[in-house]
C-alpha cells in the first residue's frame, strides 16, 4: 500500500515534471539565444490553454485541432510580442528588457482577465478519462502517458533540430556570438524571431497538457508554473536542452513528493527553496556550462 502510493506519486511527479520540462525548454531556448528572461512565457501558456478550451468546447473541434489552434495562436502571439516589445530593446541594458517583459506578462494576464473574466473554466478531458492497467491497482491515465511522451519527443526533436539542421546551427551560432554570426551571413533577427516562435509553440503545448492534468483554467493559471519552470531551467543549467528536461522532471518529483509527504501548503515554498539552494551551491545548474565573460 505504501509502495503503491509511492509509485503513484512518482508517476504524478514525472507527469507534472514533464509539463515543467516543456515550459523550461521554451525558457531555455529564448534565454540561450536572446539572453533575456521572457517573463511572459508563463502567460503564453495561459493563452494557449484558453485557445484550446474555446476551440474544443466553443466550436466543438476535435482535440487535435484544438491543440493546433493553440499552437498557431501562441506562435503568432510570441512573434508579435517579440517584434513589438523586445526587438526595439535589443541593444539596451538587460534591466530595461526585464521590466518590459514583466509589463508584457502583466498585460497578458490582465487582458485575459478583462476578456475572459476570472471565473474558473473547467478544461475538458481531451485524452479521455481511462488509463492503462498495470497489474493490481496501478493505473496510468492516458493524459499522463501523453504528457510524458510529448515531453520526450519534444526534447529529442529540439536536440536533433539544434544539432543537425542548418537553422538549428544558426541558432547555436547566435547564442555563442551574435556579431560573429551576423558576419557569417546569419540573419540574427529572423533567428531570434524563430526562437520565440518555437518557445511560444512549446508554451501552447504545455498549456494544454497542464490544464488536462489540472483542469481549473483562470487568467493566472500560467504564471506559477512559468516561474517554477524557470526554476527548473536554472536547476538543469540554463541554456542547456537536456538540462531543462532533467531539471523539469526533478522539480516535478520534488513538488509532488513534498506535497504528499511534507505539507501541501509548503510545496511551493520548498520548490523555490530548491532554486535558492542551487544558486548557492551550483549556480550553473546540473548540466550547465560555465560561461566565461568577454569584454
Amino acid at each position, binding site marked *: 500500500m505504501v509502495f503503491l502510493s509511492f509509485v503513484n506519486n512518482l508517476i504524478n511527479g514525472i507527469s507534472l515534471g514533464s509539463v515543467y520540462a516543456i515550459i523550461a525548454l521554451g525558457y531555455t531556448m529564448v534565454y540561450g539565444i536572446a539572453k533575456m528572461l521572457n517573463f511572459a512565457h508563463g502567460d503564453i501558456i495561459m493563452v494557449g490553454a484558453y485557445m484550446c478550451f474555446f476551440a474544443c468546447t466553443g466550436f466543438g473541434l476535435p482535440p487535435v485541432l484544438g491543440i493546433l489552434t493553440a499552437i498557431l495562436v501562441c506562435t503568432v502571439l510570441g512573434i508579435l510580442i517579440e517584434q513589438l516589445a523586445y526587438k526595439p530593446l535589443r541593444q539596451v*541594458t538587460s534591466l530595461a528588457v*526585464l521590466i518590459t517583459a514583466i509589463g508584457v506578462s502583466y498585460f497578458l494576464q490582465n*487582458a485575459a482577465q478583462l476578456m475572459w473574466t476570472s471565473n474558473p473554466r473547467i478544461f475538458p478531458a481531451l485524452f479521455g478519462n481511462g488509463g492503462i492497467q498495470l497489474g493490481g491497482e496501478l493505473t496510468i491515465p492516458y493524459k499522463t502517458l501523453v504528457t510524458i511522451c510529448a515531453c520526450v519527443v519534444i526534447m529529442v526533436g529540439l536536440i536533433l533540430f539544434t544539432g543537425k539542421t542548418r537553422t538549428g546551427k544558426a541558432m547555436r551560432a547566435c547564442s555563442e556570438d551574435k556579431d560573429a554570426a551576423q558576419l557569417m551571413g546569419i540573419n540574427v533577427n529572423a533567428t531570434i524571431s524563430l526562437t520565440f516562435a518555437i518557445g511560444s509553440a512549446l508554451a501552447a503545448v504545455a498549456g494544454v497538457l497542464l490544464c488536462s492534468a489540472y483542469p481549473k483554467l483562470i487568467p493566472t493559471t500560467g504564471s506559477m508554473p512559468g516561474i517554477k519552470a524557470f*526554476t527548473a531551467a536554472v536547476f538543469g543549467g540554463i541554456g542547456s536542452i537536456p538540462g531543462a528536461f532533467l531539471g523539469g522532471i526533478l522539480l516535478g518529483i520534488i513538488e509532488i513528493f513534498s506535497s504528499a509527504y511534507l505539507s501541501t*501548503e509548503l510545496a511551493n515554498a520548498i520548490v523555490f527553496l530548491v532554486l535558492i539552494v542551487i*544558486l548557492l551551491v551550483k549556480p550553473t545548474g546540473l548540466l550547465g556550462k560555465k560561461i566565461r565573460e568577454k569584454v
Partner: protein
Amino acid sequence: MKRLIIRKKSRKNFLTYGIVVAAYVALMAVMAAGAMPSAIQGLLVPMCAYIIAAVSLNLTVGVLGELSLGHAGFMSVGAFTGCTAAMALANSGMPSWGRMAAAVVVGSLLAAAAGALVGVPVLRLQGDYLAIVTLAFGEIIKTVVTNLYIGIDPQGLHFGFLKPDIGLGKGGKMIVNGPNGISGIEKISTLTAGFLIILLCLVVIFNLVDSRSGRAIMALRDNRIAAESVGINATKYKLMAFVLSAAMAGAAGALYALSQNTVTASKFDFNTSILILVFVVLGGLGNMLGSIVAATVLYILPETWLRQFSDYRMLIYAVVLIGMMLVTNSQKVRTLLGKLLPQKKTKEKEGQGDA
C-alpha cells in the same frame, strides 16, 4: 567641473527635501483647518508607506541596477514583525510613538536580515537571477506568514507553524493568526512619523549615492567588469545597497500595517510588488523625487476619483511599464516621438540610455 556637478546634484537633493517638507506642512495646515476630506485622511499614512517602498525600490532598480520583484515580501516581513513587536509592547506602558518607533526598527532590521538571506546567494551571480529569486522569496514569505501563528501571554511570545494550537496560557492573546493575519491593530502610526521616515530614507540614499560606496555601486551598475577590474568588491557593494533597500521596505511595511485595522499576508503579493515597480519606472529610474510624485499620484488617484476605471487599472500599469521602457531606451521610438513633438528636445536621461 567636478564641483559644479556636485553643486547641481545637491541642489536637486535640497529641492527634493524641500518639496517633501512643504507637502508635509501643507497637509498639516489643511488638516488643522479641518478641510481634509475624510476619504483621503485615511489614505495619507499608507501613502507615506508606499512612497518609502517606492524610494527604497528605486535604490535597488535605479542606483544598483538590479530588479527586485519581491519588494512586497520585504514589506510583509516588516509589517508582521513590526506589528508583533508593537502588540507585544502594548502593556509595557510605552507611549504610542515609542511603540511605533520600535515596530519600525524591528521591522526594518528583520527585513534587512531577509534581504541579506536572499542577497548573499544571488548577488554574486551575473544575470537576471535577482528578479526571479526575489519573486520566489515573495511567494515563500506569503506561504510562511499564511501558516504562521504567534500569540502572547504573561510568559512571553509563543510561536507556531502550520498548527494554530500554540499552547497559550491564561490571559493569552493571538497576534498573528495564520491566514487571517493580524487583526485589531491599534492604529498608532502617524503622518508625522511617515514623513520623518521618508526624510530619513532620502538622507540615507542621497548621502549613499554621493559617497565612495555609492559611486562603487553605480560603477557596478554601469559596467560590472570594468568596476571589478579597478578593485571594487561587487558582492559587497551590491549587498550593501540591496540590504539597505530591504530595510527601508521593512520600515514601510511596519508603517503601513500600523495604519490598518487588519493585515493579511495576501495584501503583500506580486501585484503589490508590481505596483511599487510602476511607481519607480514612471517616476524615472534613479530619480527619487520622481518616485515620490508617482507614488503619491498613483496611490491617491485610483483610490478616490478614478474608481470607475479600476478594472482597467492593472492593464494601464502594464502599458505604462512597456511604454516607459520603449520611450526611454529605444532610439527608434524616440525619434518617432521627436517628430511628433518637434518643440521638445529629447534629453538623455541620467544613468540610462547608454547600451
